[in-house]
């Protein structure tokens, strides 16, 4: 049967199981938008800026574990998605971005709204395509979804020229995929697994350092089982939050620049470090020469390029985290039950002492409204059950420190790229994927203004996302660096914001404000009881710092604690 490019496009999405797309129409994608009116199985969410579409698709993917999809027009529509694509790339999030393109005969002519988006996004996509013939369309879309969701996931962009969208052909929808040069290795080498377990069983001071790979490979149960069976403490990266059920007796919290004292001390003093689906990012390692200086390192990762990229490892294991951990669990079972060595018991006791000496804390008696207090209250009043997205900066770090995440896919944050403006559209994407959950964006007064326009999207589609603005009148994290390292010269970090309560009302959402600690609970309760989008403006202490902090370039055990 003959079909147009737009019909093939939507049929392909249906075959991939796509239920929602985030998008914004424009000249060259008019045919697809026209066809959408006759496509009941796909719900299109109209964003207010294409960056919002990419972040929303990302948030949808993180919360649901499925591929997120967005659709935009050529030129500026395409370039506006780039920050969202780069963020998804850094965090290995499976999204497929469809961009319109000018008709193929016009490509290269500097036509109206033409941009070489395939060239622009080459370094920040897992792969990308320019479809030149409508006959290739069905195959390419199938490949795009396959590449996005398999191996180390990531964003894939498909550029669709207008004449391809309008072209007519009898499509063949491929059942199977054959990409001769793409064959990710899921199965970890059993010999390496055996070597790793031997090293782990002999360890006196072991620590697990888990990252986003645990969540992407759905390995958190295996990870928990392994840690509990061998009594190994676990720290995770920002991306790994939710991969281990916090709070837990073996839980060390997050490590790195704003990690806990005890996580960083444990990694610094451990003798075997088991890295699972993490990539030794500079915000985690600090001064790389002094990272885990006493440890033999085991590294499990599906991407061979992550292994020995920043830190040379002793036992590399290329494979899916879930596969590797389940092999480790099966092999470890032969040694169970097992009595812990004297040294191992002393190690756990040492860690407990570190936890008691320097817990995560803040001044609870100042009388000021502290941002940490707001996050703690959010945790308490949602019983830790909300999906949390964050913006970037202090708000993100306080959320990571004071809202322990119990389960995977409940924590959405732009980790690698650190993209301000991520949290709110990502929260909308998560709310679309999980309509019955409470979704909270923990934001700053700076970040929220980068994609505040999506409030209109939230209201239009009745997405009852709650935004908690930790409003300190500053670009807080940059201000913190200025305070600590630039002698308090606050260059362009104080900022004026609108009246967020009135702004919320102008959009048709609910706006609430708290200025004193005593007002916080009532505001959060009202927000949670309101079945519509809410902006909560918390006027918090303006010069609060995120602590502990490892100054950039310092080794991890040299933290500023006060």
């Amino acid at each position, binding site marked *: 049967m003959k079909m147009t490019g737009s019909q093939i496009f939507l049929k392909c999405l249906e075959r991939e199981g796509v239920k929602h797309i985030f998008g914004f129409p424009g000249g060259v994608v008019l045919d697809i938008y026209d066809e959408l009116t006759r496509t009941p199985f796909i719900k299109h969410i109209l964003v207010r800026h294409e960056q919002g579409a990419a972040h929303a698709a990302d948030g949808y993917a993180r919360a649901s574990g499925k591929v997120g999809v967005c659709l935009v027009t050529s030129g500026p529509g395409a370039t506006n998605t780039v920050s969202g694509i780069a963020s998804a790339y850094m965090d290995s999030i499976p999204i497929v971005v469809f961009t319109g393109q000018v008709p193929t005969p016009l490509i290269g002519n500097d036509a109206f709204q033409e941009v070489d988006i*395939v*060239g622009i996004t*080459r*370094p920040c996509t*897992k*792969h990308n395509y*320019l479809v030149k013939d409508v006959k290739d369309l069905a195959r390419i879309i199938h490949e795009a979804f396959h*590449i996005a969701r398999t191996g180390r996931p990531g964003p894939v962009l498909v550029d669709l020229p207008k004449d391809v969208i309008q072209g007519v052909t009898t499509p063949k929808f491929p059942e199977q995929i054959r*990409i*001769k*040069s*793409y064959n990710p290795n899921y199965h970890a080498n059993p010999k390496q697994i055996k070597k790793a377990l031997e090293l782990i069983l002999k360890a006196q001071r072991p620590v697990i350092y888990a990252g986003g790979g645990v969540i992407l490979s759905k390995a958190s149960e295996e990870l928990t089982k392994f840690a509990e069976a061998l009594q190994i403490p676990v720290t995770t990266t920002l991306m790994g939050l939710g991969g281990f059920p916090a709070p837990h007796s073996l839980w060390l919290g997050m490590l790195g620049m704003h990690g806990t004292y005890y996580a960083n001390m444990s990694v610094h003093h451990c003798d075997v470090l088991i890295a699972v689906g993490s990539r030794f990012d500079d915000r985690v390692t600090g001064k790389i020469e002094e990272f885990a200086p006493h440890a033999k390192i085991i590294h499990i990762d599906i*991407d*061979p*390029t992550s292994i*020995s*990229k920043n830190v*040379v490892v002793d036992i590399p294991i290329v494979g899916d985290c879930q596969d590797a951990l389940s092999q480790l669990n099966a092999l470890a079972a032969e040694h169970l039950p097992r009595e812990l060595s004297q040294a191992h018991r002393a190690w756990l006791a040492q860690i407990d002492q570190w936890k008691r000496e320097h817990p995560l804390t803040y001044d609870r008696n100042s009388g000021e409204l502290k941002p940490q207090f707001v996050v703690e209250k959010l945790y308490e009043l949602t019983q830790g059950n909300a999906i949390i997205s964050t913006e970037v900066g202090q708000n993100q770090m306080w959320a990571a420190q004071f809202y322990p995440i119990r389960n995977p896919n409940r924590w959405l944050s732009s980790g690698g790229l650190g993209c301000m403006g991520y949290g709110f559209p990502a929260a909308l994407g998560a709310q679309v994927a999980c309509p019955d959950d409470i979704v909270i964006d923990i934001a700053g007064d700076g970040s929220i203004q980068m994609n505040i326009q999506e409030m209109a999207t939230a209201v239009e589609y009745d997405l009852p996302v709650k935004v908690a603005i930790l409003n300190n009148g500053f670009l807080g994290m940059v201000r913190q660096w200025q305070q600590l390292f630039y002698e308090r010269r606050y260059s362009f970090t104080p900022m004026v914001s609108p009246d967020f309560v009135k702004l919320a009302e102008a959009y048709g959402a609910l706006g609430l404000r708290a200025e004193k600690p005593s007002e916080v609970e009532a505001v959060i309760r009202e927000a949670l009881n309101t079945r519509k989008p809410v902006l909560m403006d918390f006027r918090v202490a303006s010069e609060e710092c995120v602590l502990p902090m490892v100054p950039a370039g310092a080794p991890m055990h040299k933290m500023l604690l006060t």
Partner: protein
Amino acid sequence: MRHVISVSVDNEPGVLSRVTGLFSGRGFNIESLCVAPTIDPDVSHITLVTAGNEMIIEQIIKQLRKLINVIKVVDLTATEHVEREMALVKVKAEDRQRAEVLRIADIFRCRVVDVSPATYTLEITGTTEKLNAVLGLLKSIGIQEVVRSGSLAIQRSRKD
């Protein structure tokens, strides 16, 4: 250390840009790069010369393998291989120097591919060292222009 890396890729537009973009984006260097289609019209072959310590070379190879359009990557430096490069060089050749240029050409088995009253254009094939030696000699006579292909390399077959 210098490494010669052999890369098979899909013969599609944009693939070379993925490869070179990887090098520029990650700060790896390219000393030379040779690209042409193979006897299979769907496959192109790249011979790439780069330099770096062991960790960097390992990253280069892994990153190349990660590109979806890259089919096969071999570090030829680690194996027995034959390496050749070609140069076309336009040398000043007037009066007595005409004979001297031809003598050098003869010694190094170069071919004369173009002649004018004041110049010879020579085709030189060999290892990079040989090319450097010939060009060194010709330089004292006077090189007007030189173009080099960059290295091509192929693995030696097993002899047993």
